[in-house]
């Protein structure tokens, strides 16, 4: 179906339009329009997937193992919808929080190129094409980090770029090995070859290279260094955008690769994945608890939560995968929202440093409510989305008799709750310290500044209330991952 390419084409067309637009006000309007359009298209494509099964499109009419195929299955469709929601929230948020002299309109060009890379990664069915989309994302995110041209941002940007390029190199090396061994890079074709191949244990050399490459992108322990080094430097809008979207592409790629064709030697891989998941959770949670800069706390939190998603992959039962996918969706929404609220707090107080802020609950109770929703969702308090995500993952862990990782997951919940309560106490409850401020700070925020966070908060609540319905979708996604026959047939025989 030709419409399968729309999630890539729409951002591309908006890039062209936004290069030509010089006025910041119009750039903002166009960006909001573009993200709404993207959301509608994503929802439409997903409903097509639920009706007709996997959607495929062979680019240029070159049949499947030879050309590039775009594939949208349940997992891709869900990811497209969630990332479009986040894109919309960020586009709304940027109208108030992106403020570079003379070049605010530039932000939107690279915003859309990031979205294009992201949607490309979610829809492609070809390993090399995935590499290209990763590079598109890497370049546009590098530009976004350094857009403010401050010294700290350049430093963070260089660290980000250097460490991620190492990941890209390993990706390319693994890809070369894989092509040398199998002679194909089409994911479905790879799966078809490897499922019946008795010698596929030799795939481990490629698999480990891919695992490290995606591990760097997903920021799992011990490959996460680039994330805390760079995420606190750019404008908070850009941090929120990255927090919600970037690492999750790495997790998505891990889900795709390690369910579709790196499924030999399961004992070995799932043990490694579970060990890494456990360390990621604990380390991220502990590191978050020692910092006092909101953005740093939240950055380490991203790492901690990646552990849960990877845990779903490591347990590898339909329930665990469904939980992992649900967790990913919930986390993208809630994590972005906490960063948005951190930006609002900084706007009200002029700093991200928790010791210098306080009394926000009295000053603007609405911001406090908006913080509580994603914070409790992340900590897993019912009836918010995070509760169901963690509940299913832990249930899957118990069913699979993976006691250690289940315990770690439960205890990490405490760590998450601890650092959320720390932000709550320091920023909202504590009396404001008497620090004379040079800048005049607003007493309250306008509705337009709050709107994106309200939107995401409502979605977090709705995901909790309609969790059974959403689980129906994620279960279907997990089933498609566990039984890749439909995917393979869908791509190769379309």
């Amino acid at each position, binding site marked *: 179906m030709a419409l399968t390419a729309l999630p890539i*084409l729409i951002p591309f067309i908006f890039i*062209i339009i936004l290069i030509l637009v010089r006025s910041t006000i119009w750039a903002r309007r166009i960006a909001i329009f573009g993200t709404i359009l993207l959301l509608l298209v994503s929802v439409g494509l997903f409903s097509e997937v639920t009706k007709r099964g996997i959607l495929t499109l062979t680019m*240029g009419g070159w049949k499947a193992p030879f050309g590039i195929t775009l594939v949208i299955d349940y997992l891709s469709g869900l990811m497209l919808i969630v990332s479009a929601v986040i894109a919309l929230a960020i586009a709304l948020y940027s109208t108030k929080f992106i403020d570079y002299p003379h070049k605010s309109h530039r932000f939107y060009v690279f915003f859309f190129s990031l979205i294009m890379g992201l949607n490309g990664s979610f829809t492609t069915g070809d390993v090399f094409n995935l590499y290209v989309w990763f590079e598109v994302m890497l370049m546009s995110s590098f530009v976004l980090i350094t857009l403010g041209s401050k010294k700290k941002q350049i430093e963070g940007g260089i660290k980000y770029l250097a460490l991620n390029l190492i990941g890209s190199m390993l990706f390319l090396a693994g890809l070369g090995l894989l092509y040398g061994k199998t002679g194909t890079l089409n994911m479905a074709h790879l799966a078809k070859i490897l499922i019946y191949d008795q010698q596929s244990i030799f795939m481990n050399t490629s698999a480990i290279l891919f695992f490290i490459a995606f591990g760097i992108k997903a920021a799992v322990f011990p490959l996460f260094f680039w994330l805390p080094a760079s995420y606190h430097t750019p404008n908070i809008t850009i941090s929120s955008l990255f927090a919600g979207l970037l690492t999750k592409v790495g997790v998505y790629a891990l889900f795709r690769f390690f369910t579709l064709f790196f499924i030999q030697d399961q004992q070995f891989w799932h043990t490694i994945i579970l060990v890494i998941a456990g360390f990621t959770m604990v380390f991220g949670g502990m590191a978050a608890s020692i910092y006092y800069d909101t953005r740093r706390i939240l950055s380490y939190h991203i790492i901690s939560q990646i552990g849960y998603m990877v845990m779903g992959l490591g347990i590898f039962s339909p329930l665990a995968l469904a939980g992992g996918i649900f967790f990913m969706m919930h986390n993208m929404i809630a994590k972005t929202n906490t960063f948005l609220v951190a930006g609002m707090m900084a706007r009200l107080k002029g700093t991200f440093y928790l010791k210098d802020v306080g009394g926000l609950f009295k000053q603007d109770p609405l911001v406090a409510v908006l913080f509580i929703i994603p914070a409790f969702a992340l900590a897993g308090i019912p009836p918010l989305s995070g509760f169901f995500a963690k509940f299913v993952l832990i249930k899957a862990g118990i069913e699979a008799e993976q006691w250690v990782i289940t315990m770690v997951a439960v205890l990490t919940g405490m760590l998450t709750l601890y650092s959320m309560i720390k932000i709550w106490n320091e920023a909202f409850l504590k009396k404001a310290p008497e620090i004379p401020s040079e800048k005049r700070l607003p007493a309250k925020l306008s509705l337009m500044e709050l709107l994106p966070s309200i939107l995401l908060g409502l979605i977090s609540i709705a995901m909790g209330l309609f969790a059974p319905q959403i689980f129906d979708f994620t279960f279907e996604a997990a089933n498609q991952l566990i039984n890749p026959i439909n995917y393979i047939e869908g791509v190769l025989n379309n």
Partner: protein
Amino acid sequence: MNSTLLQIASKYVQWLLILVAVIALFRGHNYPGGGFIGGLLAGLAIVYRGFAFSMSEARKQLPLSPEIIIAIGLFFVVASFMPALFTGSPLMKGEWYKLQLGFTELKLGSPFIFDIGVFFTVIGVAISFVFSLNKKE
């Protein structure tokens, strides 16, 4: 740099380079050449002028700003997807039309439009690199 020889030469070499660039673009589909190489050559023509006189001189000679050239290039790229949509074939499928020109025939196709897009994008990117490297704070 202020060399009279270079300045005089640049006036002719510049057009020669652009001619070569366009030839490279046209033969690109079946022979060595194509949008990327053509774009680099054409970008070089503009940069050459910049070296002989000054970058601001070269900038003035351009009718459009580098960003607009990039946008035009990207527009051609999108446009090259479109013919496939009207014939109902998959996106980006190469569609070819033959034009009878007297004794010879000219083959035109959507991959050529794509090449034109690459051509302009590469020109825009190349010269905007050189211009911003040459910028003094």
